Structures are given as structure tokens and as C-alpha cells.
């Protein structure tokens, strides 16, 4: 059980108040002062926790819609309450998460994991807050909603950024009239799509990669190329 014991206040024997052991990590939200202006650190923990939950939820083959909606709404609330840090780059981070949260709901089925990856990428760019957890490391590569077991990532390795072998100009012409939207949202991003620039992408992108980061990269390429996120470009994107 995760209930933690904190500082106990001394009280009379006869008194039976509702607030009990004050949790040092999360201040009692029933106190109005706390409810209105939670310290940024705890909001950030709640934010991270909510993102983690969202990730968990989206990884289900059929997410519990109620759980998803409640977590997303909570995430929006937390995000709205988080005061922007002066050390943050001028990335509109407070609006990023709700927008991405929106896109998370919009993109059902095949594009869910792509949206989720984008959200995680967003978080890693938000400075001043605790580091976003990397659930991919703990739980293995994100499974696509279309399968029980995680997809084989061998294919991704073959499709390096330079090999757009499946979509050469020549071949593209042949298949022009075929609706490839189903393929566009999946993991094999054509090299011709605009790649996400930015210095933050440097570490770990071109070098020998863990599979997780390579996959994230391609998911992001797809996301940037195919999904309209309401987020103005800025440094790091």
C-alpha cells in the first residue's frame, strides 16, 4: 500500500477530526490555501503521475474510456494550475500538454502510440520540472494497439533515416492513387517528410541507439508530419 505516514499533530483525545496524518509529500488538499495554490513541485509530481497513467491507459488494447477521460481532465487541471517557470524556454509548455491531451483523445486506434510518444517528448523538453519518467525503459517498447505482443523492432532498424526504400520517387508514382493514410500513421516514416530539427534531438539520435529512442524518433517524425498539433514551433522542436 502506498499510503505514507507523515507528521502527526497532537490532538485532544475527544476530538475526532477528519484530517489525519499530514502527508509531507502531498499537502492536505482540503485546506483552501493549499487547494488554490499548490506548490509547483507537487503539481509537477501529479502531472508526471497523470502522464504515466495516461501512458498505461493508452497501452491497453482497449483503454477504459472513463479512466482515460478522468485522467486527461485531471492532467488538464494540473497543467492549468502550474505557473510557468522563468527558467523555461519560451516553449508554451502549459498549453502543450492540454493540446497533446486533446490529440491523445482524437487519435484513436493506430495513432495512439504516436501521440503518446509526442507527449513524452514534450515532457522531456519542459525544464524546471522533474524529469518525465521513461516508462518505455521499464516496460519495453510501446506495443501498438493492434497487437498483443510488442511489434518487432527489427524493421525499424532497417528503415534508417536515409532509407526511404519503400517510397522511392519511382515507386511513389506507381502507388499514387492508393490511400496510404493507414501506413502514414505507422512506424515507417518516409525520409522525405520534414524531420524534426533541434539541438535536443542530437543526443542519442544519430548514434548507436537503444531501440526505444529510435522508435520514439520515428514516431515523432510521423507525428510532426501527419498530425496538426496546435503548438507554434520553437527551439527544441
Amino acid at each position, binding site marked *: *500500500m*502506498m*499510503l*505514507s*505516514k507523515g507528521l502527526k499533530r497532537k*490532538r*485532544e*483525545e475527544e*476530538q*475526532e*477530526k*477528519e*484530517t*489525519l*496524518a*499530514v*502527508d509531507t*509529500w*502531498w499537502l*492536505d*488538499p*482540503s485546506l*483552501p490555501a493549499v*487547494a488554490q495554490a*499548490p506548490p509547483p513541485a507537487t503539481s509537477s509530481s*501529479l502531472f508526471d*503521475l497523470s502522464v504515466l*497513467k495516461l501512458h498505461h491507459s493508452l497501452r491497453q*488494447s*482497449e483503454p*477504459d*474510456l*472513463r*479512466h482515460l*477521460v*478522468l485522467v*486527461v*481532465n*485531471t492532467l488538464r*487541471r*494540473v497543467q492549468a*494550475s502550474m505557473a510557468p517557470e522563468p527558467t523555461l524556454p519560451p516553449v508554451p509548455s502549459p498549453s502543450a500538454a492540454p493540446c497533446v491531451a*486533446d*490529440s491523445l*483523445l*482524437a487519435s*484513436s*486506434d493506430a495513432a495512439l502510440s504516436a501521440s503518446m510518444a509526442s507527449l513524452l517528448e514534450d515532457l522531456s523538453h519542459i525544464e524546471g520540472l522533474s524529469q518525465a519518467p521513461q516508462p518505455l525503459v521499464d516496460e519495453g517498447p510501446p506495443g501498438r*494497439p*493492434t*497487437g*498483443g505482443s510488442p511489434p518487432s523492432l527489427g524493421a525499424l532498424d532497417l528503415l534508417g533515416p536515409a532509407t526511404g526504400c519503400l517510397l522511392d520517387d519511382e515507386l511513389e508514382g506507381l502507388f499514387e492513387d492508393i490511400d496510404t493514410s493507414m501506413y502514414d500513421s505507422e512506424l515507417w516514416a518516409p525520409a522525405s517528410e520534414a524531420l524534426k530539427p533541434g539541438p535536443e534531438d542530437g543526443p542519442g539520435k544519430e548514434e548507436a541507439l537503444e531501440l526505444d529512442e529510435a522508435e520514439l524518433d520515428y514516431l515523432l517524425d510521423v507525428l510532426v508530419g501527419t498530425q496538426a498539433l496546435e503548438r507554434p514551433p520553437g527551439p527544441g522542436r
Partner: protein
Amino acid sequence: MAGPGGGGCPAGGHDLQWCFSQVKGAVDEDVAEADIISTVEFSYSGDLLATGDKGGRVVIFQREQENKSRPHARGEYNVYSTFQSHEPEFDYLKSLEIEEKINKIRWLPQQNAAHFLLSTNDKTIKLWKISERDKRAEGYNLKDEDGRLRDPFRITALRVPILKPMDLMVEASPRRIFANAHTYHINSISVNSDHETYLSADDLRINLWHLEITDRSFNIVDIKPVNMEELTEVITAAEFHPLQCNVFVYSSSKGTIRLCDMRSSALCDRHSKFFEEPEDPSSRSFFSEIISSISDVKFSHSGRYMMTRDYLSVKVWDLNMESRPVETHQVHEYLRSKLCSLYENDCIFDKFECCWSGSDSAIMTGSYNNFFRMFDRNTRRDVTLEASRENSKPRACLKPRKVCAGGKRRKDEMSVDSLDFNKKILHTAWHPAENVIAVAATNNLYIFQDKVN
């Protein structure tokens, strides 16, 4: 059926003393996931009690008749029928596994010797007929006693088969299968007072069915936004009014209840009444919405009130007053300061059900640590009881339990931190006419009776 306030139960006149009656289920510490009870429901007469579990099975218990030679056995529920209602399925189109867990069981009113119930998993509703066979025919002409066909040329005389008694056999057979009408997970089914139609509700839609027709259903509520990005609210429960066959209610994840009248339009997206309690600003937190999400809604037997269960409380609403409930009962207010931890371990998303006593004078709902709570609406008294094997001596009275919210803990009190949050009582049922209750504690079903009984 007992009328409002009074009726057949003496519940309003004195404090009920609850005693252990029976417990069903395995004693093992290791609980098989499939054995976890997911729904409990008494039939209209109370003589039958059905449970559904995560493994897709339905077990029906029948109350024993009064028997002078076994006076203690009077009123005991024993297994009547067990059958596999739903099997795990695979949706090949979406590559999804469909759980066989029984989400809800609802009985139909009895019209002949057979019993009918509706059981549903996430996607498919089934109508089951449970019938008894205590005779069989003997002396067929075309087949012999083993069932083997007789050689027609050997038949030289005709005889009339005779009926002979046999050991009682209870058969369950699926009579209707209502499938392919729900994209999202079914959370509720409710039989209409016309006994011909019923509704089924999933996260975003409510459908109306005729019990005889399986290839068609009418969509009566649809809250799916055109753009899924705009989805902020889902349907959590729905129920038909017990007396007015045109009226039903549905609750939402935002703590609202909408009452709809099917006479006003075919698509009931516009409610006739909208019930919502304004948020208390002093208790506002990040979790306000989650704890306001309604997990169950039940009309009173009288049809004048309805009850809703949210995470921390049970509220009774007068259907004539939309602005706020007429009663609010705290189930486990001591959890309010633990909401963050409960969010972390997902307990905050647990869906507790609630139920009315036959006379509507008392209400019951579950909590953690195998505790369940009862509120007497007349005396305004409430009690916390526990479903546990330790308190399971025959006809032993249950001792009220108390959770210490803070400060110095008294000897017989439990502290919040020692509560077992894995032992949750989500499903309870109250006999429609007597003070007999069924409480599902994970894989065990407890039956308690009032001492007077």
C-alpha cells in the same frame, strides 16, 4: 412490493441487528481472478440470488423453503444453477480480446414456471432461461431406453409414453443474444416496467431493445462528440424508472444525472431534468472531478427518489428537485486526505454500487477492508459492518466497526493506514421484501440476515 416508507419491513422502527447467515466461495488465500464476483442481484421475489464473476460464469442460489424438520435451514440459499454465460472472445477486426467478465445481471419478472435473466459483458447481452425439469418421458416408440433408434421393422405395437419423476434438473439455456450494438464497454442494463423492453448503456451511448428482437436496437442517447478531442465526459450508469416506462436516468463521470423522457423525442440527448450538486469551493482539489464521478444510480422502489454513489458519499435525490440532493451520507470521509495515494494506486477509480432496502428506509453501499456501510434514513443512524470469515459463526451478530480518522485511536478502532485496499466491497444487494442482504467480497458471497428474521 413494499410501498414507500413502511411496507413490510420493520426497518424504520428499530435498529437492525445484522447476523451472519452464510458464506459462499473458496476459503483459499490465493484468489483466482476468474472467481472474483462482479455482480450480485436478487430476483423480484427474492427467492433467487444470482452472481456473475470475472470468468463469465453465473451462479444462481435458491432460498430453501421452510422445513419443520430443519428449522435452521429456513431461508438458506443453496446453489440452484451454474452456467457459463459468456466466453472470452476475440474481435478480429480490431485485434482486441473481449473480456468474459459479467458486468451486470438483471432479472425479468417471473411470468411462468421458468426464470429469465439478462446478463452482460462489455459487448454482448444475453437472455437466459432457467427452467426445471423433474419428469421425463418413458416408453417411446421409436427409440429404446438408451436413446438408440429402434429398427422400424421391429416395431409391432404402439404405446403411449408415460411421464416418470426424476431428480430435479435445472437447465439454463440462452434464449436471445443481443450483440454488435455497442462500440464501447457496457456498464448498465435495466429492464423496463413494461417488461417488454430494456436499455443497455456503454460509455457514450444508450440503446433500447425489445426482448424479442435481437437484430435491432434503438439508440436513445449518444454523447459521443463529433471530434473525440472534445470528449470530457462519459456515461457511467443508467436505469429505467421502476413505474414510468417512458422515464430513465443516466449518470456521468462529472457527477451529473440526466433524467430523460422517451416520449419527448426519439433521441433523448436533451434531458428533461438535470441533477447536479454545486461544488463546495472549500473542498476543491485536483481530484474533485474524479471523486464526483458517479459509479451507480438506483431508483427507490417507490420511484420518488434516486440514489447516486460517488467515491466518498451516497446521495439521495428527490426527482422533483434538481438543484441538490435531499440527503448526503458519507461513506468513508477519512479517505479525503488520502486521495493522492488513492489516485496513485488507482483505487480512486473503483466503482462502488449501492442499493435500497425493500421499503426504501435504508440504503447500503460498500467500502474497503471488506467493510460495508448502512444508513437508516429514518433514524439517521449509520453503521459500518465487516464481511469476514472471522465473524462467520452461524447466526453470530455483526459487531459495528469504526475507523479512526485521526488523533488517538481507541482500542477497537482501525486506523486508516491499516485498511486493506485490496479488499473492496463493490457489489451488494438487498432482498426486495425482507432484511436479507448479499455482500460480495472478492470471491466470497456473504449473506446476512436481520436478527428478527
